[in-house]
Structures are given as C-alpha cells and as structure tokens.
C-alpha cells in the first residue's frame, strides 16, 4: 500500500519537475533579457518606443484607434507615446522600472500563450479595468494644469470634485476615450440629475407570497417586507442556556402560520407619515381609547420636546411611542394600504428572530463569551467579533439608536431583531404563559386573554449580550415610563421615560385574499 502511494507520488513529482524546468527556463530567460535591457539606457529607450510596443500589440485596433485619438491627432501637433499613458512617469524610477518589467513580462506572456482573437478587448474599455494599465501620474505629468482658462463649467465642477477626492475619482473616469478613438464621445461624464422624491399614489400590490416593498400612499415613504414561511419551532430557552430567566420556559413546540415581517423596525419616516396624517389637536387622551368605531383614525397628540432624543429621525427606528400608539399605527397602515398589518405575536416574533436556528442567538456564539463578566472577560475584554456585525447594542451603539441598515440580517433577511431597539409584541405579558398553553404542539399562540402590560422582545442599544438572547422576554412598564410626564391625564401616545423600545410590523398572509387579487393583475 505504502509503496503504491509513494510510486504515485513520485510519478507526480517527476511530472511536475519537468514542467517546472520548462517554466523556469522561460522565466529565467525572460528575466535575464529584461535585466539586460534594463541595464542599458538604450535598451530602456528602445523598449519604450511606439514601434516596440506595436511589435507585440498586434490587436489591430490599438494603433489605428490611437492615431485617430486626440492624443495623436490634435491642433497642437504634439503626439503622446504609448508609454506616456501606459507606464508611470520615469521620475519615479523604482515604480517605473518595476511596472515596466511587469507589463513587459505580462504582455510577452500573453502574446506567447494566448490568441489575441480570444481576448475580450471590449471588457478592458472601462475606467475600472483601464486603471490596471493606464497611469494617472502619466496623465498628470503632461496635464499639469487642471484649470485651464477655457475649461467649461461642467469641467470645472468635475475637476473640483477630483481635487477634493482623488481617491474616488480619476482622470479616465471622464476622459476614458482620449487615448484610443472608436467613435465614442471623448468625455464620458455622468451628469448629476436629481430626480424629485417620488410620491406614491398607490400601495404595493402583492400577488404572491414573496418579499415586497410597501409604499405609503401620499408620501415618499416605502419599506421592505420579508416573506416568512410558517413552520414549527421550539419556543423558549433550554434550562442550561447561560443567563436564562425563569419566564423563558418551559420550551414548547410551537407552530405559526406564514406572514410577512418588516425588514427593519418602523422608522421615523414611516411613523411621521402616520403622525402627519392622523395627529390631532388638543389632548385626546380620554376619548381616544374608544374611537375604534369612528371613520377616521385619530392619532397621536404632538409630543413635547424631541421624541428622537436629538439622535436624528429619518431611517432610525421610531421610539418613545406607547404600545397603544404602535397599535394605532398598524390600524392606520392597514387602512391606507388595504392589507392586514399588526404587531407580531410573541411566538411569531421569536420564530422570525430565530430564522430556523436554535441557539441563544441566530448567529454563532455564546453569551458567556460575549458578556463582559467572568474573570477572563473582565480583564481582557470579551471577543465580540461574532456579535458586532449583527447587533446594535451597548458595546457598539454609543447608547443611542443607529440607522438600521448597518447590521447584517438573520436567515429570514430581517435586521436588528436582537438589537437597536426592543420591540412591542401583541401579547399581554405573563411570566408563566408557556406552561399554561395546552399540551402538544401549540398553534399560533397569542398569550393570555387579559393583562396590564405587553410583551416586548429583542434587546436594544442599551443592552449587553445576555439580554440580547433570542428567547429573552421583557414587558412594558407603563407607570414607570410615564413617571416624569407632568400632565394629567398622562399621555397615551408618548412615553416620557422610555427611549429604547420601538416596534416592527407584520402583514398577515391570507391565501384566499391573495388568490382573489391574482386575476386582477394578470
């Protein structure tokens, strides 16, 4: 057995050696000639002539297109040489010689080994590809004045942009075709056209169960909804999960129907669309609870101060609205889009957050490693590389909300399930509710029938890793969160003392309704 193997090995090695020999001869020969040429100035000059380049650069267009280009055919009578653009300037001798050697060797190799017909020349005619063989310093060696007197306003704008940010701009980005003329315009400048924000007239039309982008009619606001196919999962955390709390068990087998869930927590843009459309004058605290029958939805009264805490609105998650306000938002959203939006149940939330995973998080890692306790982590700091890219939490948030798209999604494509802000659920909170569900697989549980406080799920920018666990449960604290509201009655729309909770909407999936809609759009 061993002999056979060694024979096989030997054979392979022998083959390799032979191949390598050829290769080596080729390399040594090439290097020697390059070295020889490099040693003599004459050689250097000779190998930089257009004729020398043309000897190999047999692809027929190179020479012809160059002759037609503005770098050869122009009013000044000055003609550039191949190496003026395709090598760095000679006043950077080391760079110049290494690039010259590289291109010489590379081009020779390609010339010998490949058929020019097979090379995709067209693919090299864009500014990114061309960066590999056109040298910006070469441009600037001759074109020393970026602001010649006849430069037009668009050119002036573009050159200013280049001066400000040379990393992300380049000469050939706009002047791509100046070296080889193929009938294209010599300037390939992108003119910036600002289109006004589109105001949506219609909500999104959904005919199949897949991701969609909802549009709020009458606004420029849209948001992504992810299709979450229903299924069965283990809800809660096993008794041995680090930092587990008693209300997270017993683990139950739970089944939920399919639904769509918003990719991110409701943003300020979305929430302000609701506020602007429904906000009411005066104070409607007393009668708002019973306005369900009224045609229009009367929404929040104006908040005091800055509900965004001065952190910025826009795409950051909306915060400080009450659970009641969040539910009113869902009713309003349903009425303007013709769909069934609501808060997720606790079971739906956990199912979506897990995305098929069963650990403490939807990504790898244990809270023990991430948490800043235990002797080792206290001294050396926890290794947070695993958690950092998925969650906005205490460690990386600096104690405030962050724009939602910074983090990586979970397996269902949902972002910030475990961080940025905690999220309201539909259910009332009961610490023992898992044990109270009937035996067997629990289908679409909705929590206790009655209660005072509601479930909130998912960690926030305030939490440390142990409270970011997917099974972690928490609940609203209405009285505490209105502590400093000086008005009587206290607001039913805005919490004065809670800035870490937001919410996420789900849209119910109703097969019958979808099928009804389908024919209309076909």
């Amino acid at each position, binding site marked *: 057995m061993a002999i056979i193997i060694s024979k096989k090995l030997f054979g392979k090695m022998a083959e390799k050696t032979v191949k390598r020999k050829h290769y080596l001869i080729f390399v040594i020969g090439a290097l020697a000639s390059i070295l020889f040429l490099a040693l003599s100035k004459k050689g250097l000059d000779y190998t930089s002539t257009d004729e020398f380049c043309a000897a190999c650069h047999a692809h027929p267009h190179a020479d012809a297109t160059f002759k037609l280009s503005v770098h050869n055919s122009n009013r000044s009578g000055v003609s550039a040489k191949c190496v003026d653009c395709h090598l760095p300037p000679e006043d950077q001798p080391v760079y110049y010689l290494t690039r010259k050697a590289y291109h010489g060797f590379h081009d020779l190799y390609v010339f010998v080994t490949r058929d020019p017909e097979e090379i995709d020349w067209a693919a090299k005619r864009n500014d990114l590809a061309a960066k590999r063989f056109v040298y910006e310093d070469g441009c600037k060696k001759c074109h020393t*004045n*970026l*602001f*010649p*007197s*006849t*430069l037009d*306003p668009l050119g*002036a*704008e573009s*050159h*200013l942009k280049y*001066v*400000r*940010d*040379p990393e992300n701009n380049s000469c050939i980005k706009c002047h791509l075709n100046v070296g080889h003329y193929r009938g294209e315009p010599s300037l390939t400048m992108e003119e*910036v056209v*600002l289109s006004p924000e589109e105001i949506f007239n219609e909500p999104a039309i959904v005919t199949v169960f897949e991701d969609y982008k909802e549009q709020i009619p009458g606004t420029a606001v849209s948001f992504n909804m992810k299709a979450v196919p229903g299924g069965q999962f283990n809800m809660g955390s096993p008794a041995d999960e680090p930092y587990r709390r008693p209300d997270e068990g017993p683990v139950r087998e739970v089944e939920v129907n399919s639904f769509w869930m918003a990719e991110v927590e409701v943003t300020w843009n979305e929430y302000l669309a609701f506020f*602007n*459309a*429904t*906000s*009411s*004058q005066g104070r409607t605290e007393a009668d708002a609870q019973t306005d369900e029958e009224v045609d229009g939805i009367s929404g929040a009264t*104006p908040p005091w101060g800055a509900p965004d805490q001065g952190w910025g609105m826009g795409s950051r998650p909306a915060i400080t609205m009450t659970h009641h306000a969040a539910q009113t938002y869902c009713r309003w959203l349903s009425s303007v889009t013709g769909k069934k939006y609501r808060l997720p149940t606790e079971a739906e939330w956990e199912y979506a957050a897990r995305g098929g995973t069963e650990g403490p998080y939807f990504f790898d890692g244990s809270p023990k490693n991430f948490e800043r306790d235990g002797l080792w982590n206290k001294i050396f700091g926890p290794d947070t590389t695993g958690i950092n890219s998925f969650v906005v939490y205490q460690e990386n948030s600096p104690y405030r909300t962050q724009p939602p798209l910074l983090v990586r999604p979970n397996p269902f494509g949902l972002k910030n399930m475990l961080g940025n802000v905690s999220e309201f659920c539909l259910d009332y909170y009961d610490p023992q509710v898992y044990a109270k569900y009937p035996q067997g697989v629990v289908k679409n549980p909705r929590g206790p029938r009655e209660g005072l406080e509601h479930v909130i799920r998912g960690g926030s920018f305030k939490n440390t890793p142990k409270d970011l666990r997917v099974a972690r449960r928490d609940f609203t604290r209405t009285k505490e969160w209105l502590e400093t509201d000086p008005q009587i009655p206290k607001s039913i729309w805005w919490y004065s003392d809670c800035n870490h909770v937001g919410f996420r909407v789900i849209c119910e999936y109703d097969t019958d309704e979808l099928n009804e809609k389908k024919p209309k759009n076909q």
Partner: protein
Amino acid sequence: MEKNQLSRRNFLEQSALIGAAGLAGISALSSCSNKSKPVDYEFPPLLDKAPDGEKLRAGLIGCGNRGTGAALNFLAAGNDLEMVALADVFEDKVWDCHSKLVKQMVEVPKNNCFWGFDAYKSLLEVDLDVVILATPPHFRPEHFDAAIQAKKHVFMEKPVSVDPVGSRQIIATSKKAENMGLSVITGTQRRHQRDYLETYRQVASGAIGEITSAKAWWLQSHVWFRTREEGWNDMEYMLRNWNNFCWLCGDHILDTHVHNIDIVNWFLGKQPESAIGFGGRVRRLTGDQYDFFSIDFEFGNGVFSHSMSRQVDGCANTLGELVMGTDGYTNCKNTIFNPDGSVKWQYEYPKNRDGKSTGIVEVSPYVQEHIDLVTAIRTKKPVVEAERTAISTLTAIMGRTAAYTGQKVTWEDMLNSTERLGPEKYEMGDVNMDFPVPLPGTQHKA
C-alpha cells in the same frame, strides 16, 4: 498638524511668513484631503497710493451706484488709471453712469458703451487690462469666467454668487486666474481696512488666546426696493428690483451679512462645518426674500458662531463682529479686550488737528482695495482673493439654506449641491417662474 486648524503657534509661524495675508482661504475645498495648501501670496503692503507703472485701462460691467462708485475708487487708486468702457443690461443705466463720470471729469468713449445681457462680451473685446464686476451677484460666475478667459485682471463685488453651483464655479475660475498670474480683488473691504488688518494681526499672534466662539450681526432697517412700473416686463422688473429677488441677490444674508461672515471665517481661519438656523418674512413689500435670519454656524470642537441678519425698521439695529478667546475678546475692528472687559489694545487711528483720534482709517477701504489691486498688477505679485470670498459666500448660502429648509446643512452638502437659481435663459420678457417665500419644514395637520 492640519493646516486649517486654528492654533496660536501655527498662526504665529504663518503670520510671520506671510504677514497679514488672509488664512481663511486655506483650501477649504480640499478639507477632506491633506493636500490643502495655504494661501501663499504675500499681501501687498498697504500703500496710500498705488506705485506708478504701466497704464491700466479698466472697463465696468454693471453700471449701478456701486459700479459707478467702484469705477471712481479705481481711478483714485493711483496714476495712469483709465476707465475706457461701460456695460450694463439697461441702456439708461449705462448713460446715467456715463454722465456721473463726466461730472467727475472722466470721459468714457461713447462707442465703448454697451448694453444688453451680452454687453459684457462686447466690453471684453475692448483693449483693456482690468474689469470691474458690479452687476447683481447672480451673473458674477459667468462674467468672472469670461473676464479671466479674456486674460483680464478683475475687481469684483461681493457676494460672488447666489447658489452653490455658482460658488464652485468662482472657485474653479479662481484657480484658472492663479494659473495665469492674474490678480483678482473682491469687494470685501474689511480685509483691506488697516484697523481690521492690525486687529487680525493681534489675534493671530495670540492676543485673545485660543478662539472659543464668535458672533456676527448685520441688523438694519429696510433697504431699497422698486415697485413695478407700467410697461416693465417680468425680467425688467426683477432686474430693476434685483436686491429683493433671491435668484439675483441671494437674499441679504449674502448681500450684506457676507461681510461679517467673511470676518468670522478669516479670524477663525476656516469655514464652518455645518449650520442650523431660521428666518422669516414679516415686513417686506416686494420680492421673495426673508426679513431676518438667525444662524448657528458650527466650526467643530465646540466652537460656534451666531450669525444674525435683519432688515426691519424700528428695531435694535446695529452691526459688527465679536470673537471670543480664552484670554479675551475682540470686536475684530480695532480693539482687544481682556476677559474682564478692560481694553488690552486699541488701533491708533490718525489724529485730527486737536490731537484727537479721527476714528477712521487714513485711506478709505473702498479705495484701498483698488490700490492693492493696482499694486499687485504693477509689482507683478499677483493676488487672487476670489476663492476665499467664494467660500464666505458659500458659507452664507449654507446659512440661508438652513433657514429656508429648516434642516441642518453641512459644508459637504454645499460642495455637492446642484442648486442653481434663476431662469435657464436670460431675455427680456415675461418669465415663467414662481416666487414662493421659502417655508421651512412641513405643515402639521389641522
């Protein structure tokens, strides 16, 4: 150390090298790269009169009162200076200016007088060396570029544009002028005023310590306006009432307050990073502009400048600048105060016969500007002020945008903004434009 950062040592070294040259111009455009280079010209010595030399022939574009005044200021700057051509959009303005100059014994050849939107092109074909640009600021970027392409030295009034696109065009043309060795002086006369310059020198050498905050204000009664006369089409009406239309004037936060903003930028050695502010319109009779602005400019590191501008009669009207430092403060114009309010240093004005301070500089700053221009040309030491004035203009535009929109506006926004005000084409006749007074933010529901 980053060059546009403000530190006493940096200032000392720089000011020793370049005298009282403005540091504010320090390549604000390339603030994100380190390739910024300081304004490296040596400011011409402040002479009472420009040195003799080659004859300089000047043409005036924009024949209103300021243009006419600037023409006379130019002629007063030295010997062998001539006004040889006039241009304005309106014929009556040209002849009006012509006759005012005749009264001052200045005879401009009548065949060198041009009017119409393209009059400036005809003027640039006349054999002349210097062009004075004094039209409404809307037209400045176009006229300035044409003047530089025609290889003329330029004196131009502030503000130098009305929108971000125009400001950036001025900056680009300014670079052209530098490359061509031409001189460009702008009408930011405080920078040519000896008391301001000496005070700047004091502050730059550490008289008030590190700068911690600033304030600038231009609060005055209402300014001139024209109500529409019979027979004026839209364009003629707006041009004759240009000081009240934003696309022509840029609003008074540019038109007048840019002076104060320019001083703050100068003394702080950089332009602000962002602006939040507000404004409104309560008393104006014509046009589409605001009556008042209050802008908080943020310079970074906890340094702010509060900018106020107002044009309303019967209010607490005053104007000036104030810069606070760790070791005292200054009015920028002539006095350095200790932190307790006592005077630490004061500029010495010329004295009158009774030995009392006259309180004004020896040479009018409006003439000094032209002395400095002619000196730069004749001593072959070119000076180009256009970029730094464009930066101050763009700073004012940032404040205006913050007030008009209610948003926080950053310098980066200004460098990327595609806002260009005014009609596509200039022609006399009715103009299809709306002039809503800007309303910040959004309306809440009733």
